[in-house]
């Protein structure tokens, strides 16, 4: 296990001088040993570039990479001792399942008995002992991915386990099983795990900390709770949570915030408000239906609703702006089209130019 330090790491695949085009903009970051991190963001935002930089498949255009206190920027992939699981199952087709699992150990020159013991131990955890003798080509996608994962785990001394959307090709039922196995293994081995995904549920269930990325930049880093409760930007508010955070344009008049004609109190300390586009953001989960006028209550019109099992999402519009409200199913649908929505001040945040004020 190692602490991973990215020091001013940036990468441009076509070696462009203009930093705004870089796949990964210069970044300083420390990842603690033994923790699980999730990199979250849309396709092409630089998640995989970070992983490949750590494993050495990509040499960064600038910056240094440190494992603990050792500079590994110029050390070849083979000597970094990184386990990586790719998006598509990667198996050695010419080999059996056993040979696949033992390959990393054979490469390291382990003794045959030791390899056998270790491979069986891992196969036991992954529940594929009965398939060890089979040809790896003939397995299904999820079993192949299990083997890719197993090859990452079979070494007991890896610096980090990197997973690049490992569950993309797995069908939903096996996904659940596989996710459970990955979690169990992380616990046993106390690995430093960096998990890339664009699925927020996957990220939130796996990770101690999440990093939301966009266009080669880390937008926010924090625990799932921090990201959900107080996103630092509209981008994160929209990306995390389903449905996305509500954003309503507001105006500032003498240090007070107005949505239309309604005065709103927010959890943000009032900031400089001159000449900036201002919005308040609130999670659909925190809006409740009010019975009468009061503080932070706005009027809205109900357009329709989505039924999501235990909860319903009410699609409303207020002052021409859409608002989603999540209410428990037990509460029942409101009678009539006109609603009063309560936006609790401590859950409402002020955003200026797309960033938390």
């Amino acid at each position: 296990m190692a602490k991973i330090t990215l020091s001013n790491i940036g990468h441009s695949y076509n070696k462009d001088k203009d930093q705004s085009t870089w796949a990964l903009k210069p970044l300083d970051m420390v990842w603690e040993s033994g923790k699980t991190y999730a990199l979250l963001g849309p396709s092409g935002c630089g998640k995989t570039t970070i992983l490949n930089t750590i494993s050495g498949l990509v040499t960064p255009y600038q910056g240094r990479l440190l494992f603990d206190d050792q500079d590994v920027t110029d050390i070849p992939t083979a000597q970094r001792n990184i386990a990586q699981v790719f998006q598509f199952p990667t198996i050695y087709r010419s080999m059996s399942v056993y040979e696949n699992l033992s390959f990393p150990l054979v490469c390291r020159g382990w003794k045959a008995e030791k390899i056998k013991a270790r491979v069986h131990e891992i196969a036991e955890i992954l529940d594929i002992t009965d398939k060890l003798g089979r040809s790896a080509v003939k397995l299904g996608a999820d079993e192949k991915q299990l083997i890719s994962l197993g090859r990452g785990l079979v070494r007991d001394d890896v610096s980090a386990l990197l997973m690049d959307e490992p569950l993309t090709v797995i069908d939903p039922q096996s996904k659940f099983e596989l996710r459970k196995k990955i979690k169990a293994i992380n616990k046993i081995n106390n690995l430093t795990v960096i998990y890339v995904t664009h699925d927020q549920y996957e990220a939130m269930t796996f990770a101690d900390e999440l990093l939301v990325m966009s266009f080669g930049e880390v937008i926010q880093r924090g625990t799932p709770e921090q990201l959900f409760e107080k996103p630092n930007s509209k981008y994160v508010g929209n990306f995390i949570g389903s449905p996305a955070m509500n954003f309503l344009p507001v105006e500032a008049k003498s240090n007070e915030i107005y949505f239309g004609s309604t005065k709103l109190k927010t959890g943000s300390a009032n900031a400089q408000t001159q000449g900036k586009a201002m919005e308040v953001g609130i999670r659909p989960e925190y809006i409740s239906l009010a019975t009468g006028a009061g503080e932070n209550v706005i009027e809205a019109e109900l357009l329709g609703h989505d039924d999501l099992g235990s909860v319903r999402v009410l699609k409303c519009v207020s002052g021409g702006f859409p608002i989603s409200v999540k209410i428990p199913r037990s509460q029942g649908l409101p009678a009539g089209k006109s609603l009063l929505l309560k936006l609790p001040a401590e859950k409402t945040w002020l955003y200026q130019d797309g960033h938390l004020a």
Partner: protein
Amino acid sequence: MYKVLKATFITIWSLFVLFPIMWAITTSFKPESAVVNGATFIPFLEFQPSLIGWKAILPGPDSITNLITPTLNSFIVTAGATAISLIFGSLAAYGLSRFTYGWKNYSNADIIFFFVSQRIMPPVVLAIPFFLLLKELKLLDTHLGLILVLTSGLMPIVVWLMVDFFNALPREIDEMAMLEGCNPIQAFFRTILPLSKPGLTVAGMFCVIFGWNDVFFALTLTATKVLTLPVAVIALNGTVTPYWILAASTVFSIIPLVGLAFVIERFLSRGNLGGAVR
């Protein structure tokens, strides 16, 4: 109607292709009289088969030339050139497929074109330079000399075919191998090469065919001590062309290739190519 047309076309085409070979085979069993007195085709009916042509080229009392030694020479030269071309050609192709090389504006594609361009040049241009080169190296009329010259022509084919083949293999395989502790050479030999049998087979087959059939370099650079089969066959021609002996030697010299084709065809059709694509 379409089926009939298709069948007719295929039949005619097959006859067109096979006829010369059939004619060579029948001619190799004809006595002199059956050759010089107009065309004959059907054995026992139009002519009495005889082994005179075959006896002339194989060791024995009626032998006029011995094709066994040239066959061995051809075998050594072809095998040597093919082996060298496959080993170094596939290594070069792997490098060109996986790594980026460059100098100024030239990159991998230019290097590959440089390899292939060796085949664009007509061999006759190379005859004198090669002759002088081999003379200088004291390799004229030796196995090694001819092997090296043939390799220079065969390697481009291997590089060209194998670059495409390696490009089609997912890059993740060797990346994974490197993550798991292999250096690039180990990654190639342990994970990529076992998957490359179909490609290597095809490339090797081309090498064997071109190497086995080479006349030009064998004729100009060797001839006495290292006589290869095609050169020996040509040497059988005299002022009066002995068609039956030539036919027998021709058939004799294509037997190894035909045999190889059968072996490879079985090998390829066993689904080895099927696994080559993701």
